[in-house]
């Protein structure tokens, strides 16, 4: 088979990495805000962080780590020309992403039920440091959850393209880039989890 179209897989990959850098700097900035306020209000952060549900946080960490493995394995499957296995592995990853969001719903739901949400009456009566912690908690996990949703959409597109053989064992850079995006979501969570849920 002769390929007449121009393809630059390395360029595509580098472009994806450049985009990932902007995401890392975005979250990096938020982590700096967190670090500065934590150093200024250590006791308030301590009290506020202890109110987060460590169990749900741990479950979601495991969910993201396992889903990172399944998406990485789907690339191996497509490279070996095993289309069916690749599709199953992408589908499993999407299901894990859904599980993460359902957990997040229950976690946030419980917080809102207790009156802790941005702009609530209770939030305004909290001490300055606690208010800052919960605001950062909602903003950082919220922005992260948004990335989970985007990651799910990318994975669904990849799934359809694998099904239509648009992604195949000689052209799979889209799946690789989708995988990179999914791993980015995992990377951010690896730092969010101990900083928000564990250090209390």
């Amino acid at each position, binding site marked *: 088979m002769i390929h007449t179209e121009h393809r630059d897989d*390395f360029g595509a*990959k*580098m472009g994806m*990495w450049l985009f990932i*850098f902007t995401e*890392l*700097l975005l979250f*990096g900035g938020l*982590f*700096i805000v967190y*670090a*500065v306020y934590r*150093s*200024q209000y250590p006791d308030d952060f301590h009290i506020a962080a202890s109110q987060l549900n*460590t169990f749900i946080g*741990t479950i979601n*960490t*495991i969910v993201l*780590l*396992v889903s*990172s*493995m399944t998406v*990485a*394995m789907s690339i*191996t499957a497509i*490279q*070996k020309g095993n289309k069916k296995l690749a599709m199953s592995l992408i589908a499993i990853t999407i299901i894990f992403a859904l599980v993460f969001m359902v957990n997040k719903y229950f976690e946030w739901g419980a917080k809102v039920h207790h009156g802790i949400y941005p702009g609530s009456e209770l939030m305004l009566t909290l001490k300055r440091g606690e208010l800052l912690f919960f605001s950062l908690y909602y903003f950082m996990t919220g922005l992260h959850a948004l990335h989970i949703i985007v990651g799910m959409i990318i994975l669904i597109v990849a799934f359809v393209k694998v099904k239509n053989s648009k992604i195949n064992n000689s052209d799979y850079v889209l799946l*690789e880039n989708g*995988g*990179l995006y999914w*791993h980015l979501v*995992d*990377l951010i969570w*690896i*730092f969010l*989890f*101990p*900083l928000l849920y*564990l*250090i*209390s």
Partner: protein
Amino acid sequence: MTMNKHHITDYKTYGWVLAILLFLTALTVYITWFDLKALTIAAALVIASVKVTIVLTYFMHLKYDSLVLRLMVAMVFLLIALVFVLTFFDYLFR
């Protein structure tokens, strides 16, 4: 390594990587049960950094990617670390 010959990571490697990542997660949860103040934070951050390095190396395939990509990624993390240090110089010694 030629441009069109890709390294294929086998399933077993990914399985081991996941096992190590899960072990490190358990370790972080375990050490935070002991309240060692600053030491706990340091330990949690060190473990998180190790986990991130493992994800970058194996899941994100940097181990088998070109040196240019690896250097670019290293630079970005270095930049973030540098901004952290500079910010704290300002806040701690003003």
